[in-house]
């Protein structure tokens, strides 16, 4: 991909979002502008309340911006769309359906024939390493397995952009490391545009080509840091001297924001 001319996949144009609550108006996002390239992996970090989830929801089409627009391939985003897959922190699996049925959900919504839906689902269940659990219910799975199902479910819809809202935030350190490695591997193979939200600086640098640091209240883009560590990366990348440099740099910025919020 180096040197390759890439087009803008996702254009976030001066997005402003406010919430009207009982205690007045809260500005969640204050003029966020960002271009995300085709097949790029972008991580957004920032303290809680900086509006990073709001931004993801607006890109997903689940929330509406108060002003400003997001564009996908130059077309304004007005509603949810299957070309934008979302992975939520709380897994959001349908508990009354088996793993297979959960992953089949997207293809079924496209009204594909049942056999085809099942074939697609089985392919992605295999990809996330959950073969043999097709007929299990979510309650029988661990947190890491649940999130794998959620990732498989998002992939089964073959989205052009993957939006991930702190997907590994609720997992223990080992599971998290494992899923990071798996996600890296998948992305290196399939190269989908990834918009990944996290509050974990290590995670952001390990995964992303660019790390977007957001400031809190109101949410703005504070800085964008290029992660110039070549792929393939894995957990060992975390010992790379360049990784440690970037980590200190990003961490200081995020920590300053954290202190701002605490004030």
């Amino acid at each position, binding site marked *: 991909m180096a040197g390759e001319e890439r087009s803008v996949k996702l254009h976030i144009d001066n997005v402003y979002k406010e919430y009207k609550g009982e205690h007045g108006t809260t500005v969640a996002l204050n003029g966020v502008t960002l271009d995300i390239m085709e097949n790029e992996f972008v991580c957004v970090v920032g303290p809680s309340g900086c509006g990073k989830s709001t931004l993801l929801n607006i890109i997903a*089409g689940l929330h509406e911006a108060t002003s400003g627009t997001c564009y996908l391939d130059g077309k304004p985003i007005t509603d949810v769309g299957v070309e934008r897959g979302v992975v939520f922190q709380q897994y*959001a*699996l349908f*508990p009354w359906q088996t793993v297979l049925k959960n992953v089949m959900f997207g293809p079924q*919504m496209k009204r594909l024939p049942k056999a085809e839906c099942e074939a697609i689902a089985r392919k992605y269940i295999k990809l996330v390493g959950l073969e043999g659990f097709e007929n299990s219910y979510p309650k029988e799975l661990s947190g890491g397995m649940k999130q794998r199902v959620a990732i498989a479910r998002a992939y089964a819809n073959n989205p052009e952009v993957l939006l991930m809202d702190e997907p590994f935030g609720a997992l223990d350190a080992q599971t998290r490391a494992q899923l990071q490695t798996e996600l890296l591997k998948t992305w290196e193979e399939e190269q989908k545009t990834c918009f990944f939200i996290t509050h974990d600086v290590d995670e952001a640098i390990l995964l992303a080509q660019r790390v977007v640091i957001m400031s809190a209240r109101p949410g703005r883009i504070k800085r964008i840091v290029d992660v110039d560590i070549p792929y393939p990366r894995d957990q060992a990348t975390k010992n790379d001297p360049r990784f440690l440099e970037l980590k200190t740099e990003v961490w200081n910025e995020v920590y300053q924001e954290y202190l701002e919020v605490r004030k």
Partner: protein
Amino acid sequence: MNEKKPEKIKKKPLSNKVWLLLSLIVALIVWYLLSLGKATGRSFPFIQKTFIESFPKMAFERKVLWKDFCSSMICVAAGFGLGFVTAIPMAFLMAWYTPVQKIIMPWINFIRNIPALAYAPLIVIMVGVGKTPAIILIWICTFMTMCVTIYGGIANIDTTLVKAARVLGAKDMDIFFRITLPATVPFIITAVRLGLGAGLTTLLAAESTGAQAGLGMRIRALSGTFESAPMLMYIIIIGIIGMLLNMLVNFIERRLTSWQEKRDQ
């Protein structure tokens, strides 16, 4: 059901069936002791009088037991059925349209706290005596109980699930049939359980409306002649019906909602 597991026991724990048997034995002992007392014995005659003598008396001599049973079951079934089919759409309307909820909910809560016996005569004045007022009364009570329960369930559906479905391409219809409905099933089952309970507890009030037969009506009639033994039998029969209905609901629940994550697992 919340069985409390005894903590840290070395011995093999007793099975639920054994516990049930033990509980029955304890009840029988208490009942027997009550039947020995002079005053308590008047109200609680032991099995000999309550069942072995009363059952043939009510079932074969007076030929009313079966009629009473059927009459009550028809009232409960009809009242509960009406309550069920009206509570579900009303609960959805309240969940979807805030004005409906804001206008109706306070009155449901208001009427729910009034004993049915209090407004039973009003229903009789309106529709006359017989089964009709009994059914209407049970309908009102079961409707309110179930409506509140189902509404609570729909209102608390995990919105992330709806979001997840939408981003996967689900339209409103898909969301209703594939998310809202299955997510509501556990609450509908709870509502059925509470509704059946409400139906049975309203029975006495419902059959105070000049019913010709019925378990509740018979208890009132027998109280007029101080026949405590058959009365006690009728009371126990109502209890047994409630228990059997509850078991039926539990059975259905296990079949339909085994996917649920139980907190005490």
